[in-house]
Structures are given as structure tokens and as C-alpha cells.
């Protein structure tokens, strides 16, 4: 089956990101496909390159990047959610004259249309939030 996964929370502050990560690993292992990973609301913090977890903690953003690269998963970080939370790619950093950018290379900034499109083309849609 083709599954779209939507993540609404930041890593660590709530458990939902870690649960979503385990769900995706289990789905891929069972031979299913992830049609799209859509980070929405606070979930965009999963796509920051600057997070530095304590050593004895699972690095959730890094785990997402590894999973995405390993399986070539189409990954979107919602642009309106990301801008508001200070998650920018180079283009948006230039547009809003910010001196830094911190969006993971494994994610693309795009709009809610990509979630609607994914919903129309996936067999299942699962949300993780708090």
C-alpha cells in the first residue's frame, strides 16, 4: 500500500515524532511505500539541521534524514508553518533577509496543496500529533 504520513509536533517535546518514525520504519519493512512525508505545524522542527540532542538521546531529525535518503521518500515541510517557526531554506532566507538557513536538504518547502495531492493519491493517510 502507499501511505502518506503527516507529522504535527516537534521532536522530543512530544512523543508523536518518534512514534511516526517507528511507524514509517515498520511500514517500509513490511513492503509498503511511503507516498509522502508531510511535516505540518510544529512538525517542521523535524526538518531543522541545527538541532543537537543530548548524547544519550535518539537524534530524531538525523533519523528522519537517514530514512528519507535510504528510501528516497518524497518529503515536504509546510512553508507557512516553517517560515513562522524559523525553518528556512536559502531562497526564503534571502527573500526575508535572514543571515542563515537551516532546512534539511532531504526536505522541500512547499504548500498544503502537496498534502491534498498526497491524500488524493495515497491508499492511506496517517497523522501523528499531540
Amino acid at each position, binding site marked *: *500500500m502507499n*501511505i502518506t504520513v503527516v507529522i*504535527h509536533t516537534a521532536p522530543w517535546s512530544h*512523543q*508523536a515524532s518518534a*512514534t511516526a518514525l*517507528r*511507524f514509517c*520504519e*515498520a*511500514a517500509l*519493512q*513490511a513492503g*509498503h511505500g511511503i507516498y509522502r512525508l508531510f511535516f505540518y505545524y510544529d512538525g517542521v522542527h523535524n526538518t531543522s539541521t541545527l538541532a543537537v540532542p543530548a548524547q544519550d538521546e535518539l537524534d530524531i531529525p538525523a533519523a528522519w534524514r537517514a530514512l528519507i535518503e535510504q528510501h528516497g521518500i518524497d518529503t515536504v515541510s509546510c512553508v507557512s508553518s516553517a517560515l513562522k517557526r524559523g525553518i528556512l531554506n536559502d531562497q526564503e532566507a534571502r527573500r526575508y533577509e535572514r543571515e542563515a538557513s537551516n532546512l534539511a536538504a532531504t526536505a522541500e518547502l512547499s504548500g498544503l496543496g502537496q498534502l491534498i495531492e498526497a491524500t488524493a493519491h495515497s*491508499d*492511506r*493517510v*496517517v*497523522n*501523528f*500529533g*499531540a
Partner: protein
Amino acid sequence: MSALHVVNKPQSRSQTLRSCLRLLQPGDALLLIEDGVYACADTGENRLLWQNLPADVSCHVLQPDLDARGITLPLTAFALVEDAGFVDLVCRHDKTLSWF
């Protein structure tokens, strides 16, 4: 047409679980995850909560969340599932409603 309802909060903390229960229909499945697993610990209040479920609704609880929290005696009405079981439930039902 049947739905999988996933709930991550116990009824003691919010209205989320009660609202989900209100919309369950025969053939649906309920899966407790994260903090929702506290709702299937064997207590008087929880036993009361699960009495009037619609017929033919299957109840499941995510084992990793039970183990993490040290809950050893979940109510027997709940089938224990691992992550693979979570995926299977999603595939077996037409849609997944995530209550959080």
C-alpha cells in the same frame, strides 16, 4: 467501510478519548498509543469506561508504549500489537482517524 481510531490521551486528561468512543461504529477498530495506553490499565475507572462499547469493535494497544510506561496488566479486552501490527491495522481499515 470501517475506520481505525488512534487515540494518544487517557480519558482522565482530556475529552479526546470520550469523543472518539462516541463516534465508534460496529466494525471499527480502536488503537491506544503513547499516553492513551494508560486508559487500558486495570483500574475501576477504566473498566467502567470500556463497558458500553458498540458490538463488534476491536480494541488494541501498542505494546512498546505499555512497556515504556511499566504497565504490566492491561485489561484483557485489549489485544497487544507491535509496530508491525499498527501498520497492519492501518491497512486493514479504509481510513485512519488520529485523535490527539
